[in-house]
């Protein structure tokens, strides 16, 4: 019975694990689904405990014979095996270097598992490739992307999602310090710890290759300039973060750090 408990634990762990991944992308509908499945799981657990109670109830009837609960009998059926005392009866006349073989019948639960998985396999294939109900990977992907696009559209409409048209430079300390963190983590390897320029250009002077000002800087961060090695950050940083980084970069103006790279690009006037 110990193994049963362990199995149950594994199953519920796996189950919670999947639900957790669903929750990560949760919307109302999936949450609802999760609640329902949680309810079902709880009921199943309760049923299992009750089953444990019933299955082990062995009583003596009036004549003193042991009377097994129906579930206990069922369990016995599932694992049907010849008791060890009677194994002489099923001992085959095989002898390989002293190794003998019994002819125990195949445990019914094993057969159920075996044929069950075969049936499951047939259903799976039919579902995916004949009835086309299952989602093959490209369908699944297109749906995922479509949903994300809808959500994005909504966020842009509500103004939660900044773009290069609507972005403004911010100057409060919290934003600038967040911008600094982002800069050190993502930008400093090419532009230097203080924006003095390394592989990438100096960001503290008057000169800008792709235009100065918060809108241009935001745009350069967002889309990148792949042919020159500036990578696009729009899939990696959300717009608020790009805004913070752009604002921080603007705050570097005139700091004149040591080892500054030569000016590149054109002098920028607002």
């Amino acid at each position, binding site marked *: 019975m110990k193994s049963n408990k362990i199995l149950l634990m594994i199953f519920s762990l796996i189950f919670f694990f999947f639900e957790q991944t669903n929750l*990560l992308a949760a919307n109302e509908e999936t949450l609802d689904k999760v609640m329902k499945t949680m309810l079902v799981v709880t009921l199943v657990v309760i049923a299992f405990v009750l089953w444990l109670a019933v299955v082990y109830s062995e009583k003596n009837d009036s004549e003193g014979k042991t009377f097994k609960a129906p579930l206990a009998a069922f369990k016995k059926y599932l694992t049907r095996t010849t008791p060890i005392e009677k194994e002489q009866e099923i*001992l085959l006349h095989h002898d390989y*270097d002293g190794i003998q073989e019994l002819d125990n019948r195949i445990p019914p639960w094993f057969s159920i598992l*075996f044929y069950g998985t075969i049936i499951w396999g047939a259903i*799976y294939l039919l579902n995916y*490739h004949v009835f086309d109900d299952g989602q093959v990977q490209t369908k699944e992907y297109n749906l995922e992307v479509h949903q994300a696009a809808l959500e994005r559209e909504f966020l842009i409409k509500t103004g939660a999602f900044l773009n290069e048209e609507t972005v403004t430079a911010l100057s409060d300390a919290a934003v600038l310090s967040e911008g600094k963190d982002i800069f050190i983590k993502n930008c400093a390897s090419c532009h230097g710890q203080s924006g003095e320029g390394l592989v990438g250009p100096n960001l503290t002077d008057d000169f800008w290759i792709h235009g100065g000002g918060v809108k241009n800087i935001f745009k350069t961060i967002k889309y990148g300039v792949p042919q020159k090695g500036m990578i696009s950050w729009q899939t*990696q940083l959300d717009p608020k973060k790009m805004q913070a980084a752009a604002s921080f970069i603007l705050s570097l103006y005139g700091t004149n750090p040591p080892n500054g790279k030569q000016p590149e690009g054109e002098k920028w006037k607002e």
Partner: protein
Amino acid sequence: MQVEKFSYDNQVVKQFAIATVLWGAVGMLVGLIIAVQLYLPELNLGIQYLTFGRIRPLHTNAVIFAFVGNMIFGGVYYSLQRVCKARMFSDFLSQFHFWGWQLIIVLAAVTLPLGFTTGKEYAELEFPVDLLIAVVWLSFGANMIGTIIKRREKHMYVAVWFYIATFVTVTILHVVNSIEVPVSFLKSYPVYAGVQDALTQWWYGHNAVAFFLTTPYLGLMYYFLPKAANRPVYSYRLSILHFWALIFIYIWAGPHHLLYTALPDWAQSLGTVFSIMLLAPSWGGMLNGLLTLRGAWDRVRDNPILKFMVVAVTAYGMSTFEGPMLSLKNVNAISHFTDWTIAHAHVGALGWNGMLTFGVLYWLVPKMWDTQLYSKKLANLHFWISTLGIVFYAVPLYWAGITQSLMWKQFTPLGILQYPNFLETVLQIIPMYILRSIGGFLFLCGILLSAYNLIKTARQGSFIKNEEAEAAPYKNEKDQIKRGLIHRWLEKRPVQFALLSTVVVLIGGLVELIPTYLVKSNIPTIASVKPYTPLELQGRDIYIREGCNTCHSQLVRPFRSETERYGEYSKAGEFVYDHPFLWGSKRTGPDLHRVGGKYSNLWHYLHMEDPRQMSPGSIMPPYPWLLTQVLDTTTTQAKISVMRSLGVPYEKGYENFANEDLENQANKIADDLLNNGIPAESNAEIIALIAYLQRLGTDIKGGAK
């Protein structure tokens, strides 16, 4: 009845047993080194032959083919003689097999760090070694079949069935997956490209697990476990059912290594359903193992040999449950490319193969040296250290895999990747890597303990080189196929048995491989995809030599979290000129399929010189030698010619001026680097590698949009 006198050859078993422990310790030591390199990349000591990419294949090959391989052969030679009641067919073949196999291992240990690799997992060895493997393997097969044919026992025991299936299947797998065209003495290209190569490789790779790590070990279990427990095998019927079901179904399951890739959907689905169907046949082996111990459990408590075997069979049951689960698409979407797979593989390798090996050795050595085990206490200590080692190894990696995968997939409420910087997800799991290496260390300590204990045991006994035995000769009685006894009939006919198992294992392979090779619609062509330039081809071979594919995949899966991070998902038609495919199986670093054009040449240059310059905290080792080593262009001509012979459309005669193109392209990259302040030699290897990386995944952009 007259009784014949003969003797069993213990000498070759002894040799294989010694080799098992020796190579086991070496293989695990290399494993420990690479485990530590994941958090201390400096551990390659700046030597190019010791980087993770080069010695990880050494570790896997050593453990699979040297540690497990030698145990298989030792165990087979011991048990086969006894259940057949016959000495091995030929002592010469036994010795040839032993020394041939050790030569192969030594060759692997030399060529892999030197960078001679095909880049295909568990089949990394180059073609001269492949040929040698084929010869030695066939000598083993001939010796085995010969012994079975001259046996004195009428029927073949279930262990022998597994040995036969192992021999025929591994032969097929090795030959089909290793068809390659040589470019030079130690360099070749596989005949398959892209999707076809991937399918062939994982048909091989998965069945290397099935028919090298599983079936022969089940055979060993069927001999050594009943012997050690002194109990009859639980169910003969179950043996028959699970043997045939196992070998038939296993061969189909390979595509589960390629879920959500550019492999056609139908092949992926076959991989999934056959993996699920594999659950019961696999558990059949576990059941027959554990239930054989019925009535002997009291002895398990104080017999270390049985303890090892119980944990082995349990680990087998666990990993054969986990395997089918990992083949489900929704689980695989999380587990694939992460450390979860590594944890799964090690529950199998350390638990099933490792523990069974020690159980067998502790039983075998006292028997052959006619003595008792030197120290039961030490064996018990070894048992606990190893079991603890497995737990310390696997559990942190499960957490690491799940954590990292969820971080890869996490979006912010605004629909932007929460952890866009790949490195962040790596640094998160470094503590888990440290714990894992402690687990590996414990397991290594275990094998050293066993070596000491076994040597001491041998010292106190005296080795029986030829063990005397006697048995009645084989009597050929005529018999008919009777209902219910068909299998009994088959058990007397080794040749028919071998042929039938060949047919059974061939079916799955043929159904999956042939349509993928032949049916065009499986790999839709993309017109803008062109062959690599000579410089890129050379760069690609450097990529293979350095084993970049051990840590970087080249396959963007069709998930939004991946297309946002890397770019358009990978299409089958993009890989048609990839001999071999380089999709990889683990992302220790980010995917590289869309890296072309993402960074500047300068970025790559500085990154290769020392990754931490560009990505602080990176665990990738520096590759400074690429900056100074001169690219060998003498091979260009042969490479282009071979590629054309494999169907890559280079113009006729192009090989004669390919090197001119190569130099032109190299000069351009060197000029660009110079413009950015780095004077690089245009003939350095780094230039070729940069050319290749900048080409990766870019062809599709030219055509589609």
